[in-house]
């Protein structure tokens, strides 16, 4: 087992690009080696050691590497980028691109995560106990595929464009979301416990389940009737009819 504990050394105003904070990049490395890993603050190249106090116990492959982050990371981006395994626990808020392109392992944030958390995620699990920003589990600009696999759970709310261009995987938002969740959904599953608006636009495959209320329905879904899912009856819609989409939208 390898455990790495990270705490910010100072308050950060300019966001830090910290894609090197990930089990894959830390596995089997000494404290000194991790401290010398590159990070960027605006246009200045620096090291993780400059920005964070880093303590390392033990040494292990990525699967057995645990990263514990304590403090305010709301200006620290790309944590857990592309990780394949291992565990990241963050006691605080984090900035954008948390766990983007991750294919395995587990990230859990006790605070909030900013936009693009779980972007283009392929596998693994991401838990955000606070709120998520825009484009949760979405794709990069112009990509036809956002999240492909894995699971994201948000205990708080999420903002607009949840799961945009999803091709697979699962997103659960316990709270409310902004507008246009499940936009261009092409095979993912989204469950929103709270309220939302304009869900499933341009959906071609996949499933969206809304337990709260839908402020505005898109005029592109065919009401098929009612259906029971786990003891709860939902209105079942298919769509988006324009491109004869085969998506399923369940609204309580």
């Amino acid at each position: 087992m390898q455990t790495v504990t990270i705490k910010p050394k100072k308050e950060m105003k300019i966001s830090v690009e910290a894609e090197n904070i990930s089990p894959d990049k830390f596995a089997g490395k000494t404290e000194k080696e991790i401290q010398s890993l590159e990070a960027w603050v605006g246009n200045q190249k620096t090291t993780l050691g400059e920005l964070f106090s880093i303590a390392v116990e033990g040494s292990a492959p990525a699967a057995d590497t645990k990263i514990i982050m304590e403090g305010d990371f709301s200006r620290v981006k790309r944590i857990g980028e592309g990780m394949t395994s291992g565990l990241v626990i963050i006691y605080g808020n984090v900035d954008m691109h948390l766990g983007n392109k991750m294919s395995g392992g587990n990230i859990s944030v006790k605070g909030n995560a900013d936009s693009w958390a779980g972007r283009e995620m392929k596998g693994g699990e991401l838990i955000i106990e606070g709120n998520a920003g825009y484009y949760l589990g979405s794709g990069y600009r112009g990509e036809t595929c956002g999240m492909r696999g894995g699971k994201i759970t948000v205990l708080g709310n999420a903002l607009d464009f949840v799961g945009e261009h999803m091709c697979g995987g699962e997103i659960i938002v316990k709270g409310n979301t902004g507008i246009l969740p499940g936009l261009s959904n092409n095979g993912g599953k989204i469950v929103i416990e709270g309220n939302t608006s304009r869900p499933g636009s341009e959906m071609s495959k996949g499933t969206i389940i809304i337990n709260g209320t839908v402020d505005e329905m898109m005029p592109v879904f065919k009401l098929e009737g009612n259906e029971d899912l786990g003891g709860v009856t939902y209105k079942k819609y298919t769509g988006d009819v324009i491109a004869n989409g085969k998506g399923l939208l369940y609204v309580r």
Partner: protein
Amino acid sequence: MTVITDALCPFCGCLCDDLTIVVDNNKITDVKKACKLGSAKIMGHHRIKAPMMRNDKNSEFREVSYDEAINEAAIILSNSKRPLLYGWASAVCEVHKKGILLAEELGAIIDNTATVCHAPSTLAVHEKGLPSATLGQIKNRADVIVFWGSNPVHAHPRHMGRYSVFSKGLFTEKGRKARKVIVVDVRKTETANMADEYVQVQQGSDYLVVSALRAILSGHADVVPDTVGGVSKEQLIKIVEVLKTAKFVSIFFGMGLTQSKSMYKNIDNAISLTTELNSFTKCVITPMRGHYNVTGFGQVCSWETGFATAVDFARGAPYYNPGETAANDVLLRKETDAAMIIAGDAGAHFPADSVRHLARIPVVQIDPYWNPTTEVANVVIPVAICGVEVAGTAYRMDGVSLRMRKMVEPMHPPDTEILEKITERVRELRGE
């Protein structure tokens, strides 16, 4: 006294190129054929006379030499960890090239006024492409014109005469008489008063209305409710019929779509409507670009960096992600620690929070005119007016590149010279 014919207008995205300018010993005395907007700019306004500086934002400016101001600007920018270079739309493409090089060397974010105007249209192009045409194709062929969230009577006064509603071409000899004009807006504008069909949309519901049109067009009127976004189903069906049976539909859209709820998805949806109409007839869609060369910045930035706006060079290579790297993104998060505002007016056209942050960081302004950005600037460098006192390239709203003339000799240096000197000085300061 000299007379310049076929001159280009340095105001809006129409980039009219048929103006006549009368010049009497280096002073413009008359402008012919320009609209009110163009002639106001060409006839000229009060100009900032000389470079000026101040240490804090509340003290008076003191006049300084160009060298002093350029040196101060270079110091501010080279010390900055998160600089923003914003504006560009009222400058020619030759200036953009210098600006992009400076941004690259500084490791800065470079963004243009599209960020508060048609940048969402670019996001939509990433999703759906852009089925468009040059304005002359519309003039010669379009029998149905749609203005959606756009008010050309106010923002593009000669558009309807030169390119759309009243224009005449090979297949449109009867002009207005043989055309159907549809205006979609949240309120009845002067442009709407001239329409054959006015569609009043509830503010913020354009996205739903476009989807309803697409559902009807694709034979799924059954799923469309009786009213969508305040528009009756009958009117929606009627419009789809008009569009389907036209010979050539030309859709123009403005900030009514780019700035309303769903933002870039409004345009992305309208582009899908355009594409789907091509199964029935010919249909194209064109953004009503505001500034005379905001399109030009998007073109130059794309061929130089691969991206059209909001490019972040912090790590020595272009990174692009509006929502993270656009001007108001970083200003709102208070990340920007120095800004250069050139050929654009952030002070007037950004939300208060962004201007409040500009008021807290060193700001360099390069512009001919005193404006709200001057009020929050530390260093002000007046320059010649592109397209009036400096020749150069500009791109029309439909992406056609044209060369602007120099009408009179300038009293101030051009933007390009200032940017070259700042870049040179930054290199010296950094010992490169």
